[in-house]
């Protein structure tokens, strides 16, 4: 189920053209899948294999709630599919937003869309279309886990043809559901969300409730709304053109506005999302054109839900607004939505969560429809780190070759990769210790290039293989870190005492740091990185050579820190640790991100280590070395 890296671009292209090409496919597929999708969604929602379809289905439901959060994925997905299948991306975005609970593996969704087969099928049918979009979405590091299952199912059931992008979007939306919604993809999302809502409302509802993020919800809602309105208005349209989508999006927006006040944030979104879901996808399709990039992930669930929800009428207004982005995201989904309004509408009533996303999608679609695709408007709201197009060469060696990562706030992000993959280089660039040749890094909404001092202030850094001032004693070193950060002496005193107690360094503080063991040095440097209580912790191999007891203590501290809103991005070689601890992971090989998303998404049913080995490309059997067995002494 895991797509190779090459498939990503293929999927993107695929998605773009898929919506147009496969709209016809989608219609029948959707029909068949919608029927099958619902049960499938429920049944397969949890399974990784069929994830795409159920996820897309689930996504809308959850996407609405978490649409905002998943916006980046949605955006990416929508961007990919924007050209051709706005709705698809929208659906994907929506899907991502819609399904916070389940992790979405993009590929299964894509495959499901592509296959268009019945068995897992709604997923498979959605797979091809959504595969590309999903991959884009996944690559975009969306956090809409929960949206994934729902949107997957939604996509499968509702919008197969358009669902490809949609499904991808749903997947993406699921992963990034929590993130700010991508307005563009909201239309797709709406459709997806409506579909998902119907089928996996229960699942996604619970998931989404947990993972509701304002932006995600917003975008999802928007997309859903857009989708529903689009679907309604453009039910008769066959192939959604961008213009048509835009019009539908506007319509959807109006409807959404009419239905409920489109609130950017999650709470109000729910109602809207519900209404949006009922709106047909067609308006979504129309509106998707502009908004798909933003709500790519969200749109998926939105799209799905929208498609599913079409018959429902409540959602129309919200859906209308959302449909704009959704429409863009899923032009295809809109078409099939038109064909199968009833199936889509079914999911509408269930989805409370998706309403949230829909509303957000509406908002996003509003923005998108207004013409300005806000690239990163959602970034500051819920993203701790946003890396785009990072490139770093060391002479001929391309250490970092175009990395795009989005770390949502409040997440525990792991970066894994083989030796020499560029992890340390990437983290050094984020920490401000290295200058990239190209690309942008935005930390908590602060652009590193324009305001480096402010960016450094919100970060705590633990670099790898760099010395520290080890002629000072431990206490003096903590004072040094604190005073450089601008803390006062008594604050440092208290915090240093707390940190020493937590890290079990009490009596070692009076000794010179050069007398410490390697693990103790790591611990004191970690304590120094945290002493000014930053928002983001950038840790490079923090558990290297630290004993298990201290590792457990450090993990507890970091988990508490994350649960209170902090963000941790760390790199490690311990796969079981990453699997146990991290909420999202990115696999970097050769300077590129090969897989990204939640843990379940990335590992796709295997263990993370197996998946990593698979991606990193083991050399297989080691041949030669026979001489090693003939002891030549």
């Amino acid at each position, binding site marked *: 189920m895991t797509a190779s890296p090459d498939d990503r671009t293929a999927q993107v292209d695929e998605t773009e053209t898929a919506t147009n090409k496969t709209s016809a496919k989608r219609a029948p597929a959707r029909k068949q899948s919608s029927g099958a999708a619902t049960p499938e969604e429920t049944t397969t929602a949890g399974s990784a294999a069929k994830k795409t379809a159920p996820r897309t289905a689930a996504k809308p439901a959850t996407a609405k709630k978490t649409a905002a959060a998943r916006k980046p994925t949605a955006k990416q997905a929508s961007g990919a599919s924007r050209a051709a299948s706005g709705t698809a991306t929208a659906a994907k975005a929506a899907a991502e937003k819609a399904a916070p609970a389940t992790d979405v593996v993009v590929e299964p969704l894509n495959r499901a869309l592509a296959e268009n087969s019945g068995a897992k099928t709604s997923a498979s049918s959605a797979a091809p279309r959504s595969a590309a979009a999903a991959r884009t979405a996944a690559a975009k590091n969306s956090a809409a886990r929960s949206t994934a299952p729902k949107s997957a199912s939604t996509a499968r059931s509702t919008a197969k043809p358009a669902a490809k992008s949609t499904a991808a979007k749903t997947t993406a939306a699921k992963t990034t559901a929590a993130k700010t919604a991508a307005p563009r993809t909201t239309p797709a999302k709406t459709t997806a969300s409506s579909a998902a809502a119907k089928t996996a409302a229960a699942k996604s509802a619970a998931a989404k409730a947990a993972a509701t993020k304002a932006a995600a919800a917003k975008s999802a809602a928007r997309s859903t709304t857009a989708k529903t309105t689009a679907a309604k208005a453009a039910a008769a349209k066959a192939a959604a053109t961008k213009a048509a989508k835009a019009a539908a999006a506007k319509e959807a927006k109006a409807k959404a506005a009419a239905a409920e006040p489109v609130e950017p944030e999650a709470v109000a979104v729910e109602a809207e999302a519900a209404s949006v879901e009922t709106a047909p996808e067609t308006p979504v399709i129309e509106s998707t054109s502009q908004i798909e990039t933003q709500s790519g992930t969200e749109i998926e669930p939105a799209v799905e839900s929208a498609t599913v929800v079409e018959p429902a009428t409540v959602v129309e207004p919200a859906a209308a607004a959302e449909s704009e982005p959704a429409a863009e995201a899923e032009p295809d989904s809109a078409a099939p939505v038109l064909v199968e309004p009833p199936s889509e509408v079914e999911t509408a009533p269930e989805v409370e969560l998706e309403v949230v996303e829909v509303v957000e999608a509406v908002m996003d679609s509003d923005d998108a429809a207004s013409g300005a695709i806000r690239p990163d408007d959602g970034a500051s709201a819920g993203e701790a780190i946003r890396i785009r197009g990072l490139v770093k060469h060391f002479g001929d060696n391309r250490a970092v070759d175009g990395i795009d990562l989005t770390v949502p706030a409040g997440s525990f992000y792991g970066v894994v990769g083989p030796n020499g993959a560029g992890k340390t280089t990437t983290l050094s660039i984020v920490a401000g*210790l290295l200058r990239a040749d190209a690309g942008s890094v935005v930390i908590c909404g602060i652009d590193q290039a324009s305001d480096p001092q402010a960016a450094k202030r919100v970060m705590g850094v633990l670099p790898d293989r760099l010395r520290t001032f080890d002629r000072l004693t431990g206490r003096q070193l903590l004072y040094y870190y604190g005073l450089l950060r601008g803390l006062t002496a008594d604050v440092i005193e208290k915090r240093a005492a707390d940190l020493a107690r937590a890290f079990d360094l009490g009596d070692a503080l009076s000794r010179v740091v050069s007398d410490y063991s390697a693990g103790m040095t790591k611990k004191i440097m970690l304590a120094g990185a945290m002493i000014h209580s930053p928002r983001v912790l950038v840790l490079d191999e923090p558990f290297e050579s630290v004993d298990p007891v201290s590792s457990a203590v450090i993990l507890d501290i970091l988990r508490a820190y994350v649960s209170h809103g902090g963000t941790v991005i760390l790199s490690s070689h311990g796969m079981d640790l990453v699997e146990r601890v991290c909420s999202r992971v990115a696999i970097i090989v050769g300077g590129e991100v090969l897989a990204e998303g939640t843990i379940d998404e990335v590992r796709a049913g295997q263990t993370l280590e197996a998946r990593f080995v698979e991606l990193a490309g083991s050399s297989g059997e080691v041949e030669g070395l026979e001489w090693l067995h003939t002891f030549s002494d």
Partner: protein
Amino acid sequence: MAAHVLRLRFALLLGAVRGERRIRTLVAFAAIVAITVAVCLAVLSLDSAPVPVARAVTVLGGAALLVGFLVGPVLVGAVDQLDPRRFAVFGVDERQMPWVLALASLVSVPSLALLAVYISVCVVAISAGAPWALAVLLTIVSVLTTALTSRIGMAINALLLPERRSRELTALFALALIVIAFPVAVFFGSLRWDGLVPDSLAVLTTAIGYSPFGAAPAFLFSVAAGEAGAAWVSGIVAFLTLALLWLAWTWVVRRLLTTTERPVAARERTGLGWFGLLPSNAFGAIAARSLVYWLRDRRYIMNIIVVPVAGVLTVLPLIVAGVPIEIAALVPVPVMALFFGWLPHNDVAYDSTALWTHVASGVRGLPDRLGRLVPVLLVAVPVLAIAVPLSLLLIGDWSLLLPLGGLAASLLFSALGVSSVLSVVAPYAVSRPGDSPFQQPQRPTSRGTYGPAAAFLGAIVFSAPTIWLFAATIIEGSAYAPATFWVGILAGLLVLVVGAVVGGRIFERSGERLMEFVETA
């Protein structure tokens, strides 16, 4: 009560030679004995000197002794064995304690040494012509005055400063003492007496003779010289001083016995060393860290040691070549000042990869630049304060004090300013932390480094006006002396401030470039 305390005092004296610190105590005792003998002999040699000379020497010496006993405990952090506070728990009569403690304080090694010295002074005075009754009386007054002064000095230390003091604070006090007292002592020692009191000293002697610090010895020799008026004034001042000291001592004892300080939250943070002394901001942190490294890292210590040695060694070839010593002695001070200022021109490279702390925390450039200069200044200023008087001693022309000081200041500060800029612009690889200072690092590129030469030449260029004025002073006379001094200091400070600001700006903006340098060097 007195008997108890005296017995206690004897026991303490005997206990000092017991235990682990026996050898150290005995060595210190022997040193005190030796010094006392030397001083007594020196005083007795005044016997042959004319009375004004003897008066000048004893008055100034006595004043210095009193000042030393008053502020010495604060500087050294000495712990008083008979601290009045220790008797507070015994329910003693606080009206008796002052004279009991004063009496007990006379039973100590320094007091006995003092007694020996003052007896010598008395002998000299009697042989000079003072009536022996008055001489003995005033000698007793002198001894009591000095003893009470030392008691009060210890009490001030107990009242003002906390008990446990960091070593670094004591070191700072000692450095301040060296910077101030050494030149003065050398100056006085260099004056040519030839049986006559130099005019400047005569005025000083008279003034101190009427003050509480030197009244008693002044009386002795005024009487011997037959100046009744001056003698009466000095005598009355001496008795008044004793009375006032007694009152002060009584008040201090009563206060120490009856009051305790409000327990303040321990401001003294233990275990911080220099970090506790310097201000709690980025500048203080970087200064403290630099101090720790300069005083403990082998690579830096080598730099510190080399400079004075190089400064002195440059003189030898010149002397061998026949340059008169008056001119050759002018060379070490500017050379040392220049090299001290040149030392931090590569400070960033010495940090090695630990520089990431500064770059990642976004510390401002100016505190960083200034903080790195603190250790250099802390070492350079005392060394120059010792070198300048010694050079002038060899030259013999004390009118060159101001110009030489101005030149040294100009070279030192402008070199520091130029180094602040060059250490961020042109750093080059040095031995890594933990390596021997003589281990050459591997340089990845064969690019020539212009940092050291640029720092050297830049300092000389910026000091050009001062150098020109100094030459003018030597050649044409002391008319240019004040100008040299002020021009030197102002120009040096200007270059220092500008260099620190510019270097700070460059540091802030090129953090990543410096990180790449330290990671590859």
